[in-house]
């Protein structure tokens, strides 16, 4: 499975693209594949504060629903309206156009790098 090397990952299959104190957050291709066709994305409101590990949204597919966990402490500064309008973007381009939200992170938590995440998901 293709895992972009510049990203960092949580055990809940979220990815973070960290630039300074700002992180773009999405879910991995592995997670999108496991969910199946995503039909509904519920994201945290812009301006809301989230805490690492806390449920801050939902991703619903035809088969199942799964919670979206905040990967770090911080404030949500932007959400991807395109993926709300067209949740299929999560399946088409989970590491790109399917990004979910941007947040200002209070501190950078311990995260997996691409190699560690790959081995976490069976090394495929």
């Amino acid at each position, binding site marked *: 499975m293709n895992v972009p090397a510049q990203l960092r990952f949580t055990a809940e299959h979220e990815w973070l693209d960290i630039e300074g104190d700002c992180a773009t957050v999405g879910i991995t291709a592995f997670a999108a594949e496991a969910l*199946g*066709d995503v039909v509904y994305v519920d994201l945290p409101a812009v301006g809301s504060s989230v805490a690492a590990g806390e449920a801050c949204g939902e991703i*619903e597919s*035809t088969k199942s629903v799964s919670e979206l966990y905040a990967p770090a402490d911080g404030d949500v500064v932007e959400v991807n309206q395109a993926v709300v309008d067209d949740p299929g973007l999560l399946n088409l381009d989970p590491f790109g156009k399917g990004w979910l939200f941007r947040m200002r992170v209070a501190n950078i938590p311990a995260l997996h790098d691409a190699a560690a995440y790959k081995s976490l998901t069976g090394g495929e």
Partner: protein
Amino acid sequence: MNPSGHSWRRTPLHDVHAALGASFTGFAGWSMPVRYSSEIAEHKAVRSAAGLFDLCHMGELELTGREAGAALDFALVGRPSKLGVGRARYSMICAEDGGILDDLVVYRLAEERFLVVANAANVLVVRDALNERVSGFDAEVRDASDDWGLLAVQGPISAAIVSEVTDLDVSALRYYAIDEAVLAGAAVLLARTGYTGEDGFEVYCRPEDAETVWSALIEAGTQRGLVPAGLACRDTLRLEAGMPLYGQELSRQVTPFEAGLGRVVALDKDGGFVGDAALAARHNAGTRQTLVGLVSAGRRSPRAGYPVLDPSTGMRIGRVTSGAPSPTLGHPIAMAYVAVGRDEPGTRLAIDIRGAAEDVEVVALPFYRCSR
């Protein structure tokens, strides 16, 4: 869970699915293709053209003997002895207390030969129950699950596809009929049955012929829009068609009457049948809960296990058994058991969706009916 791992049984078509890039899921001990690319696309293909399913995990039990029909009348809730040769019937096998052990399709292949098709998860239960129940009859049960591969072609153009690769006059094969045929050189049983709410066929073949049959159907159908279809879309297709699934709508805890399938129970059979007293009592007393369809205008879908609520009091009056966003209808649909009295179409109810009450309305099943 690693459904591609060694502890899961593989169908004869496993390598074909893997080559197509399928995702696999563990299902009733089998590693089965859950989707090849997009389950919504596969679902829509079955509604508009056709889909090809691997159902080799299903269980096949053969009953033979002079009293095979009478033995099945005693073992099941229906009356298979009245089936004509070459015809099929949906039926159930119940416990003494009326609880459903499995739902089945029964085919009469010859005067003294029946094929009983069981859900993969229930094959052993059904086999053991049949063995026990036929003991007083001149009939024999054989678990033939390893002798049969099963593929399904489902969708409005499936007749056109199947007729291209078989010698049989497909137009003469009626709904819920079965006949011997040669398909792509393989001897098969071709049945006009399915679990999607569309016209379609189920092909029973030797396991070693499964790949040949699969390839021939793909070759004949791809140009017309046939796609390989996985278990994920099979579930949303049957849900739209209002068809119950064992383990969801059907279980040991309910009788056919709660499930709205009282029509399959022949209470007036001569000689009785296993579960008859309990089922007659349930029929006469009436049920306290019944299976209904629910629709929602919202985006979040009810899911199996979610509580059904009275919208004014918040009191729990039922539970969801299956739910999903309907790919055909574009809104969430669900089946649920609700208290009798709250089951009339048009009744407003609510679902507790992870802590938030979502309004739903009771509708008559099925949600979707094909324009046959």
